[in-house]
């Protein structure tokens, strides 16, 4: 080696290190802020401007949102540095160093383990907390008596799905040939269920189970696994081979598993109130979250002071803002006019609230910071560490392969872990209260409620039907904004852009998916507001999806179905459920919030496939024009 090289290894001091770190931190933080600013600003503006209600716990919410942004920053970097390279490494080595049975067992364990690591079923239990056993016995049993079996069924469903997804890469089956029969089967089974009264209650739960399965840790891992496998496996099938598809199947198969579990219990008869029930059927006071709005209470009144009374006596006129109520007396019809003799009149002064931006409490004293942090810590621990340990074990022991030297996987997993803790804590402190407020307050548009944090009734702002339309529009933008903030969708968008080498931009994918989810959630609130049975809301969009999938090119089918499985995640689900519960509590006859998430999953498939078909049509038509033009010019161009 001649002389000292010009680029030796450096050891930088603290100040220089910070100079290099700062732009990196700033860049990543601003990326995350770009994702979440819309939903936060929208929620605040909606509550202040449209509902004209103050925001409670503003200080805590602001702090929580900042923590969410920081947590997301760490989490996304952790994905990029650690989890995704680990997944890709395993995926690229798996076909070379092991045989098919080992691969399938690994895929099944990964899928099943991921379900237990990210328990979204707890979320569904919250959605079903208001289910009364007398109204929907099978549903109640599934959620309470057989909840362990429910989780296991979902786990098995996801495991089988991952297995099939990995098999698909080897056998080059186009995703269409797996997804279309699966959806067709599910729809026919759902039709049968919708005709049987006991089973029709379970439909919402089943379809929602499919929507919530893959969470923000599973999706990038599974995507990276698929990409790794497709990097090394090649064959002669055209563009269908790109590593997507596992998430799709992991969203469809759990639905089948839950439906089959419900069918089994239905035939065995061991649900609440059924012939073989082994539990206690005394109507235990089910925690009644759906408190009936008390309509008889008068609107809150303010007492009229002596000075105001004196002013009335002096002027004899009714001042502004006072209400006059008249009853009693003798009414006679004289000469075409009604004359009332000696009626009783009561003048009242209704309460007028001053508009304030925030309510008096700036921090919710019932939430303890350390308890929140501890919950977030255990959740993150459970979600990330077992999966990573399992993957590392598989890589080193089963596949006998070391990670590349100078890899950043350890750093990445640590970042992801820290990020997830902060993210979970931030959501509990910031987004959940905000969403809860709005969820409870949105019905003020069409019903009388006790708004959050206030102690009097406010009436419908817009009247029954217009108010419901306002609620539906609110739901659309809520879905749109919350989806833009989802980390799993960000990871999918990055991956799609990387796989297509920039041909399909992340921004385009995210905007079309967010639009689709917004439409889906608006449809869900529409279903809830007007009481339409779930099957009739699900079947038309899914049938349209089947038709569009059949005629779409393979590349688009792959990641459009995956984007459906990715959407409902840790940000969307609490917000949507809070809103669903709030709206449902104010509409008589609605007992649970199921079904919205399932509708939110079908919207993005339609929008992304639509975008794909449109661009393909434009390009095909234009390419034909170019070819024609060239042919007419070619004779003159003989070089």
């Amino acid at each position, binding site marked *: 080696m001649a002389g000292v090289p010009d680029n030796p290894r450096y050891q930088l001091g603290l100040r220089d290190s910070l100079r290099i770190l700062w732009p990196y931190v700033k860049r990543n933080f601003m990326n995350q802020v770009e994702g979440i600013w819309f939903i936060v600003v929208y929620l605040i503006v909606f509550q202040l401007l449209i509902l004209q209600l103050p925001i409670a716990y503003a200080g805590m919410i602001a702090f929580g949102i900042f923590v969410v942004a920081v947590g997301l920053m760490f989490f996304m970097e952790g994905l990029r540095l650690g989890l995704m390279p680990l997944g890709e490494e395993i995926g690229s080595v798996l076909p070379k160093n092991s045989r098919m049975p080992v691969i399938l067992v690994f895929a099944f364990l990964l899928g099943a383990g991921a379900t237990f690591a990210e328990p979204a079923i707890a979320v569904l239990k919250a959605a079903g907390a208001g289910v009364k056993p007398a109204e929907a016995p099978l549903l109640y049993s599934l959620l309470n008596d057989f909840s362990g079996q429910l989780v296991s069924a979902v786990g098995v469903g996801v495991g089988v799905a991952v297995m099939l997804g990995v098999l698909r890469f080897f056998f080059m089956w186009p995703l269409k040939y797996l997804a279309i029969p699966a959806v067709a089967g599910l729809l026919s089974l759902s039709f049968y269920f919708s005709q049987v009264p006991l089973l029709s209650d379970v439909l919402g739960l089943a379809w929602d189970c499919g929507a919530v399965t893959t969470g923000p840790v599973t999706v990038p891992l599974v995507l990276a696994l698929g990409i790794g496998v497709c990097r090394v496996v090649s064959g002669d099938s055209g563009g269908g081979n790109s590593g997507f598809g596992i998430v799709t199947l992991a969203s469809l198969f759990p639905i089948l598993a839950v439906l089959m579990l419900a069918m089994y219990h239905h035939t065995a008869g061991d649900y609440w109130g059924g012939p073989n029930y082994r539990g206690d059927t005394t109507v235990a006071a089910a925690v009644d979250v759906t408190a009936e709005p008390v309509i008889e209470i008068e609107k809150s009144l303010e007492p009229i002071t002596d000075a105001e009374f004196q002013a009335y006596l002096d002027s004899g006129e009714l001042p502004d803002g006072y209400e006059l109520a008249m009853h009693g007396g003798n009414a006679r019809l004289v000469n075409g006019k009604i004359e009332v003799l000696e009626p009783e009149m009561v003048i009242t002064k209704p309460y007028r609230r001053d508009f304030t931006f925030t309510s008096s409490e700036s921090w919710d004293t019932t939430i303890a910071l350390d308890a929140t942090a501890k919950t977030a810590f255990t959740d993150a621990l459970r979600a990330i560490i077992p999966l990573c340990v399992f993957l590392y074990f598989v890589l080193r022991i089963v596949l006998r392969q070391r990670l590349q030297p100078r890899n950043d996987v350890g750093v990445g997993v640590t970042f992801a872990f820290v990020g997830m803790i902060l993210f979970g804590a931030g959501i509990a402190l910031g987004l959940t209260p905000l969403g809860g407020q709005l969820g409870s307050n949105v019905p003020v548009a069409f019903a009388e409620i006790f708004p959050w944090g206030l102690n009097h009734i406010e009436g419908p702002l817009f009247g029954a039907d217009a108010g419901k339309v306002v609620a539906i529009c609110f739901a659309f933008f809520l879905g749109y904004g919350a989806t833009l903030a989802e980390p799993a969708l960000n990871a999918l968008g990055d991956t799609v852009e990387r796989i297509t080498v920039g041909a399909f931009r992340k921004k385009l994918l995210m905007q079309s998916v967010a639009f689709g989810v917004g439409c889906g959630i608006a449809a869900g609130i529409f279903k809830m507001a007007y009481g339409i049975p779930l099957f009739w809301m699900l079947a038309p969009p899914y049938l349209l999806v089947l038709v569009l999938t059949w005629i779409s090119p393979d590349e688009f089918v792959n990641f459009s179905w995956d984007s459906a499985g990715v959407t409902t995640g840790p940000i969307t689900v609490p917000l949507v459920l809070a809103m669903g519960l709030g709206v449902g509590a104010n509409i008589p006859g609605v007992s649970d919030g199921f079904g919205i998430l399932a509708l939110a999953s079908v919207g993005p498939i339609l929008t992304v496939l639509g975008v794909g078909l449109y661009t393909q049509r434009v*390009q095909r038509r234009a390419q034909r024009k170019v070819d024609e033009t060239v042919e007419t010019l070619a004779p003159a*161009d003989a070089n």
Partner: protein
Amino acid sequence: MFSKDHAVSMVTAVLPSAGVDRITDAVLQAPDSSAIIWQARGTLLREHWWQRFVPPISPAKTMVHLLAPNDEVPHLERTLVERARLPQQATGALYSPPCAHAYFGSEFNVWPSRDDTPAAQSGHKLTENLNIIYCTVGHKLSDRVSKAAISAGAHGPIVYYGEGRGLRDRLGWLRITKEHEQEVLMVIADESDADQVFDAMAKAGELHLPGRGFMYRMVIDRGMFHLASRVSHHHYQANMQQIINAIDHLSGHSHWRDQAVFDVGSGGRGVGIDDLAAERPLLRDQVRLSAIAPREQCPELMEFLLDSGAPGFTVTYGRFAANEQSEGIAGARVNAEYGMLRCVTNQPKAAQVCSAVESGAESAGFADVAMVTNPVPTVACYVPGGVDHRKPAPPVAA
């Protein structure tokens, strides 16, 4: 020991993604022949305002690299042109610059020269006097440079991703701060056009400023390129190349292209005068090193090369297609992965790196490695100490 002095060329083909496997099977007929294949895309210009929201999806392309001996090159070119139907509009490109030096490790698959190569009679004539321009820019910054290239008369650049390595990797744990993948744009142009395209791209990408990117231009003797730049709705609208060819034909010469239109400020435009922009020094007579190694060994090889004096690399990984491939699992082929490390430096440093590879690589454990060099006449990048005329001149000491 590394063997040296093979007369090889790096045959590169840009093909539409569908059906690449059949084409590579047809080309890799000789035993021990191999190719490195990775994905790329073309670029299409946005023509309508609403395409900002629903942009045209760029065509997917695949780049195939073959290190073949010079005797085989005409036959390979002919096979590729026929199989991929390259003369058709908007399909792909093909070029094969000969390498100045080549070093092969003991285990690397060297393409053998055959004595019975059929004589090269090509039905399609390859265009002569071509230049190729490679431009490396940061993540998601390629749009501006692509637009400038297309406006200057080139086709839509072929873009692929590479990872930039070099200085940041020497900083220990701080290497996590490095940017995402870089985008490498590739444009093929006639020799007479290349100056204009090169300048336009350098200006749009502001490559004379530090940290913006790196661009170099190589001479390839012959090649063929038919790549699209736009997808248009309108009837009878000719694309840019057709218009330029037509004007060439009508005026009888191509000097009209030398006159650039530029802004003189306040909405005025001028033509025919030299651009009054900052003087941008260009580096001359550089050398491009390309090293090929299995993917698992690429990080270590990069450390070795950085230690020997190379300034930095762009690394692209691709899959390795060989002549006799073992069947993998369930009828699907399982390929190995190789990486290509590319670096452009001046000649003394290049010689230093090459001699280090020749003498030390085998003992350092890199047996399955190849390294080739190509001459690079012009490079545009940040040069410390360059003069920026936009700033006022420093006062001259009396």
